[in-house]
């Protein structure tokens, strides 16, 4: 019982902290991207790419959380 609780906390932390990091990075990239976009609208594709890059972190967090729950 105790272990299940700890696992749940671990899984939560894995995805939560990863999401926090992604959010932090995306907020800065997003602000800068909006700025660049206002001046050069043709950069939209490139900016979507840049904003998308940190998302991998939260996906990895999700993978880790899933593994904790599935393999535990």
């Amino acid at each position: 019982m105790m272990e299940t609780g700890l696992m749940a906390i671990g899984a939560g932390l894995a995805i939560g902290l990863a999401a926090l990091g992604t959010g932090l990075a995306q907020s800065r990239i997003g602000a800068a991207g909006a700025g660049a976009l206002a001046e050069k609208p043709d950069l939209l594709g490139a900016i979507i790419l840049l904003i998308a890059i940190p998302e991998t972190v939260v996906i990895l967090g999700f993978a880790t959380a899933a593994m904790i729950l599935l393999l535990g």
Partner: protein
Amino acid sequence: MSGYEYGNARLRAMKSRLLSEADYRVLARSESLDDLIGALTRTAYRRAVEAALVRVGEPEAISYALSQDLIATARRIRAFYEPPAQHMLAIILRSYDVHNLKTILRGVERGAAPDEIRALLLPIGDLTEALLDDLVQMPSLRAAIDRIATLRLPQAAALTAAQAGRTDAILSDLELALERWYFETAMQQAQAGRGEAASLREALAVDADLTNLLTVLRLVHAPGERAALQRRIEPGGWRALFVGPGRLPFALLESAVAEPALAGVADVLRQSIYAVPLRAGVEAARRSGRLSDVERSLKRWRLRWRAGLIARDPLGTGVPLGYLALKVNEIGNLRWIARGVRARLAADAILAEVEWVA
């Protein structure tokens, strides 16, 4: 979030639209003002020139377009940031108030025509075009200061204090008062700006140094004036003429004043970051006999230093400091090119005075 991401990204994109060396070459080759107007419509100044062609006649169109473009740019940039970053930007822009007031006081004192003074203004600080335009028309230095006081501009106290302290306030006292007012108020406000304002504090210190250096050079270059002034200044010594201190300690500057020649000043300051431009400028001045060569060398160094801040401090005040220095320099270049084209100077002669950062 530091609050600079959005604005700095926009400024960096705007920086890529600044004129290049190739653009300047095309512009300088214009054969007439008409030609130059045409060439400018193929640059980022297109909109400003189009408006100017409606607003004023063709002879004044360029100078009108340049001023309006600068004003519009500054207005746009102010909207890029929110407090506290916006406050830091306001401090940077306020330095142009000092430039404008100094230009007006100088112009009014030597009885320059209002249009002539207007053509040198950079109305992007807190003092609006309307206020500056009123001051430009004052008949005398005194009248100008009276009007500054009556309008209660922020610089009024510093100016009236400098005036009251002297039986015959001369221009240089007033200019010093303005510089000091800016350095002190700006430095104090920049302290609130945390790490992102580090570049701003550094830029304020560098500007104080450069002002002081020019004072030192002027004194050394004119020993007669130095002797006359020595009697006038208080026993406190030469520091009565300095702003700051910036990075250079007053004692060092004072020891430089005592040097017999410009080369000596460069020698005293050989350890400072200004050593290279100072030495180059002194060398040029030695050949030409003109102090303005040193001034130009330092000015060129300042432009490069400021432009370098964009890369060194991408997420703080470095980007607005760098961009504005480049933009203002560009406006200066274009004003000069317009003068050169009107005077039918050769393209090379015009380009020789144009500054750009590759």
